[in-house]
């Protein structure tokens, strides 16, 4: 039922639809509400290496909208971005970390990998710069000290079990979650040998539900490898990536809402393209935001109106 807001005015410039009016008013109310007057909202961040930095862009768009986030879960790069957010680091600073990781530190761990060196050494390498980055930004923090409940996923390399961390020392858990198998040595923690959780749970939706989320928004970096990898490292990364995508396609349906930034042209190890991935996150999340708001509002209606 169209009609100008300013019927009769020459300056009529805005003509919102009924849906626009309703969404705007209800969303404003929802943003100001706290559980139990609305569902608890979980954010699940997928893996994806450098592509995973798109989550920072998704966070930026969600923040503009005042989207409530009550708990966060992450796998691999999603664990890095998610832990920083759960710690209370501003989205602006997470962007800066991404640029730093791209230009100065994390990329070096990947650039340092040489096939001959790997074969000659006959042992897995330690990602010095990734460890340094995680230690410097998460330090001695524990899960319990974070501002938001947080979970991250890793895999036990000996048993293939999915391990969901929700308490204890944070840095080791995040370090394990982002630890690429086959290249980097497994992280020894709590009597387990831990590697990247993306191999068993690319989108940790059930981890977010385990933290108590009633409604889960998943940010998923899609993989569409169209190129033949150039070396052993990229081949391995691509296999992990394809495996992650297969897992993702199974678990996506468990999310209440999905945002899939278009980052398929960015390789897992393209850390110099973190900003590009972040931009893709902003663009895709902005496109989908109204629908995400509507989805959460429909799920919130009983709580928004039935509780005092």
């Amino acid at each position, binding site marked *: 039922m169209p009609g100008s807001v*300013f019927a009769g005015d020459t300056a009529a410039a805005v003509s919102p639809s009924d849906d626009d009016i*309703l969404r705007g008013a209800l969303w404003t109310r929802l943003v100001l509400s706290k559980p139990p007057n609305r569902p608890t909202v979980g954010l699940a961040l997928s893996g994806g290496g450098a592509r995973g930095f798109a989550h920072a862009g998704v966070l930026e768009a969600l923040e503009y909208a005042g989207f409530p986030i009550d708990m966060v879960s992450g796998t691999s790069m999603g664990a890095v971005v998610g832990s920083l957010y759960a710690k209370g680091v501003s989205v602006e600073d997470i962007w800066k970390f991404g640029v730093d990781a791209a230009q100065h530190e994390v990329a070096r761990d990947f650039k340092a990998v040489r096939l001959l060196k790997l074969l000659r050494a006959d042992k897995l390498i330690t990602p010095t710069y990734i460890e340094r980055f995680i230690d410097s930004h998460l330090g001695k923090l524990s899960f319990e000290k974070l501002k938001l409940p947080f979970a991250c996923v890793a895999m036990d390399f000996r048993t293939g079990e999915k391990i969901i961390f929700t308490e204890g020392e944070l840095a080791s858990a995040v370090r394990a979650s982002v630890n690429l198998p086959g290249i980097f040595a497994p992280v020894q923690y709590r009597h387990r040998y831990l590697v990247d959780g993306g191999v068993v749970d690319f989108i940790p939706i059930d981890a977010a539900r385990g933290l108590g989320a009633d409604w889960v928004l998943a940010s998923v970096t899609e993989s569409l490898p169209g190129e033949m990898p150039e070396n052993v490292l990229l081949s391995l990364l691509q296999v992990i990536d394809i495996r992650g995508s297969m897992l993702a396609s199974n678990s996506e349906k468990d999310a209440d809402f999905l945002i899939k930034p278009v980052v398929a042209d960015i390789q897992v190890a393209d850390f110099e393209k973190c900003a590009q991935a972040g931009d893709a996150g902003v663009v895709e999340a902005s496109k989908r935001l109204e629908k995400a708001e509507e989805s959460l509002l429909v799920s919130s209606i009983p709580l928004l109106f039935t509780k005092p």
Partner: protein
Amino acid sequence: MRKTILLFFLTFLPVDGFCFFFGRGADRTPEMFEAMRSDFEKGDCASVVEKAGSFLNERPSSVLKETVFQYMGRCYEREGLADRAISLYQLASGLYPGNYFFAARLAEIYLDAGFYENSITLFTKIISVRPGDLEANLGLARAYARLGFLSRAKKYYSRAVALTDFGDLAALREYASLMIKKRDWPEASMLAEKGRNAEPSDAFWPRTLAQVWAGKGDYEQALAYMNSAVKFSPKSRPLALERALYLVLSGNTGSAVIGADEALAKSPSDPLAALIKAMALFKEGEIDKARSYFESAVRDGEPFTAKIAGAFLKITGAKR
């Protein structure tokens, strides 16, 4: 005999061929240019485009050609021939790199066509040379806003409105709406006050202030501004219903029902009015009375309106 043949040949040689052998005749391009300028000013784009080919064949001076390219480009745009305008502006940008008209028009076309990244590249280039270019700042702000980069958009909207000392009211409205979307209440409030000073009887500005106060959770203030907005546009259905929604959300269900009933009196199947009345009745505990209005909103409402009404119907069904 040979001289006779040559004389015969030269007599019937076409003009172009004559010029090829004996050089150019009198320069006709200033005259042709004047005719095209006149056509352009009269809005006769068909004539401009028709004359352009022969004009350019005359190898006009660079200055005249540059201006004619501008006429042609604008004419292509007016005729809806965006692909030709793009090709021409791309060519002209290469030929006249110091003339930012071509880059600016190209950027605007990209912006209108949804090629935001392309327009951002061009607007950014223009602004790097001419930071005070109003259109480029506005264009860049719009491109960033449409992609979702609200902080970047704010930077350029802010600069654009400052360049006109808040005098460009259309830009001010766009900027204020963006700040509402960004939930930047201090900036939105400041812009709305500027707008209200410039257009004291326009409903847009009190409505913007109502959105600011609702965003801060102060429905009392929001309703005060909404009342002003309705006063300035008393016939506006959307404003009246938005006010009624604020009444429901602030707990003033009795007044919300009155507001919804006014809209339903004009249009008994008004789905948003039906939903608002139903929500107010629901809050008052009048579940059975609310049901028929929820059903009406499900039946006639826009997709989201119908979904919300449907969600309520589920609850009312359970409560029966």
